[in-house]
């Protein structure tokens, strides 16, 4: 089967161009990151709406805060960890706390996103960090066109928004122009209620493939995409958990603070269920090819299917 790649970086750029065609308050803030997302077409059309601040992420965030306070909608796109770790305080105190409408787009998320660059450029903590900051909307679209739509949908959200993207080599998950709805889970597969597989982002196709392997073992799985990590669709997640009573979370992120933690919180407070969390098990990745890394760190189709099957078999 041939795999079609749809770059999340290009998806971001195309979404931003579509926004800028309609509104004159859209600004592209670059920390020497314009070329990373192949932003030259934006620069050619709206040079006055590109603010290049150089390799200085704290500066980029603080400048964006000032521009937002003066009525603009800055989109700051650079490496996910240089934003959420190096400029974390600026994102919190100068953007989220005063509810400034700055939009952050974090590149190279996960070991899949950072792949051969190694740990310094593989960001597995971004969602956990931002989930603790009041006021953020956190979006993890699954492929390039979903990113484009997330960018379009982000423009009028109150307060700051974070959109998690990758290296530009993501597989297609959805047909173009599939809707992207903020704040709602989406059921992608309904093969039964033995177990729910919760996921987001670039592992989604793997999770869907795992349901086929599970079906061969007589296990019916439901695949749930949680593309909005905040605000979390607690009601939708609880409804799924109530049916399955068993859940596996699959995320290209540390299992602490991200999707696995979010689902665990729902389980603890709203709807008891058994849970297994797949993702980075409180450890770092390493350099490697993207798919090879996901396989090695517990997110192969087989690992996902095995984890789900064990949960179901234990219960029988």
């Amino acid at each position: 089967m041939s795999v079609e790649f749809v770059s999340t970086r290009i998806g971001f750029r195309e979404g931003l161009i579509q926004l800028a065609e309609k509104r004159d308050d859209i600004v592209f803030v670059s920390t020497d990151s314009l070329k990373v997302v192949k932003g030259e077409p934006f620069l050619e059309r709206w040079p006055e709406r590109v603010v290049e601040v150089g390799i200085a992420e704290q500066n980029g965030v603080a400048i964006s805060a000032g521009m937002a306070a003066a009525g603009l909608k800055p989109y700051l796109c650079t490496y996910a960890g240089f934003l959420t770790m190096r400029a974390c305080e600026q994102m919190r105190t100068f953007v989220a706390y005063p509810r400034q409408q700055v939009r952050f787009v974090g590149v190279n998320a996960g070991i899949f996103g950072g792949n051969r660059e190694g740990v310094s450029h593989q960001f597995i903590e971004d969602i956990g960090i931002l989930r603790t900051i009041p006021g953020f909307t956190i979006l993890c679209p699954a492929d390039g066109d979903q990113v484009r739509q997330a960018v379009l949908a982000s423009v009028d959200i109150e307060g700051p928004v974070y959109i998690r993207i990758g290296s530009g080599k993501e597989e297609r998950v959805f047909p173009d122009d599939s809707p992207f709805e903020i704040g709602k889970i989406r059921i992608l597969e309904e093969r039964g209620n033995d177990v729910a597989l919760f996921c987001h982002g670039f592992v989604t196709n793997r999770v869907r493939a795992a349901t086929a392997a599970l079906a061969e073992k007589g296990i019916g799985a439901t695949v749930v995409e949680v593309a909005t990590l905040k605000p979390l669709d607690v009601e939708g997640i609880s409804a799924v958990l109530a049916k399955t009573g068993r859940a596996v979370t699959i995320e290209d992120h540390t299992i602490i603070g991200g999707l696995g933690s979010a689902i665990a919180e729902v389980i603890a407070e709203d709807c008891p269920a058994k849970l297994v969390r797949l993702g980075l098990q409180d450890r770092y990745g390493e350099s490697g090819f993207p798919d090879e890394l996901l396989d090695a760190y517990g997110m192969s189709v087989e690992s996902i299917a095995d984890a789900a099957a064990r949960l179901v078999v234990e219960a029988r």
Partner: protein
Amino acid sequence: MISRERIAQLEERARQIRRDIVEMVYRTKDGHPSPSLSATDLIAALYFDILKIDPANPEWEARDRFVLSKGHACPALYSALARRGYFPPEELMTLRFMHSHLQGHPYAPKTTGLDATTGSLGNGLSVGLGMALASRIRKLDYRVYVITGDGELGEGLIWEGAMAAGHQKASNLTVFVDNNNYQSGGTVGEITGVYPIDEKFRAFGWHVQTIDGHDFAQILEAVETAKQVADRPQAIIAKTIKGKGVSFMIGDNSWHKRVYTDKEYEMAMHELGGLR
């Protein structure tokens, strides 16, 4: 030539702000009095002479903006906002209380007339630069003024912002350095090694002036000169005195954050025109 009346008016405004600072810290039992007093004359000049603002229309898009990067000096700023008519002066005495709109460090969404949220040091220059760049993009003709401390020049982000502002030729950005020579733990010379300040800003592509930050004629003239600079941001290094206006606070850095006793309060108010 700046008229004597103009200066006398500012001197009276500054004295009122200093009285408010002492009163706020004494009555609410918290705050940073001496860093507020060093910045008082700059803030008085901004709010009662320099800034193009309209208290009846605080959200006016083309207004000048002010960013107090050394946010802990906000008692001075809150007083200026109140005395300029943004909110009733009696509300000053709710500083740092629950449900007050006057947070311990400036929080723009709560305080009418306040342009920027600050408090964590080193960020205000970049926030101000963002506002200055927005005026270009939105084709609004306004200027942005920032006051930084001298101790906070130790933050790396100040120099990221300084480099970007110079590179962007942000000529509608003027930064005052409140050079009172002290930070929380001692003199800036001892702790930060920040000098020379003027040469650093010049090297980052700024127009630089050094003035007496308690001399209104010098403050107003320096701003007039800065406004004529068309190709660079401007730094005005204001030599100031931490605790200015209250003699027993000067040279005693414990007043960085300290509350007045009844006797100290009376002594301070006596120096600032007497108890009323």
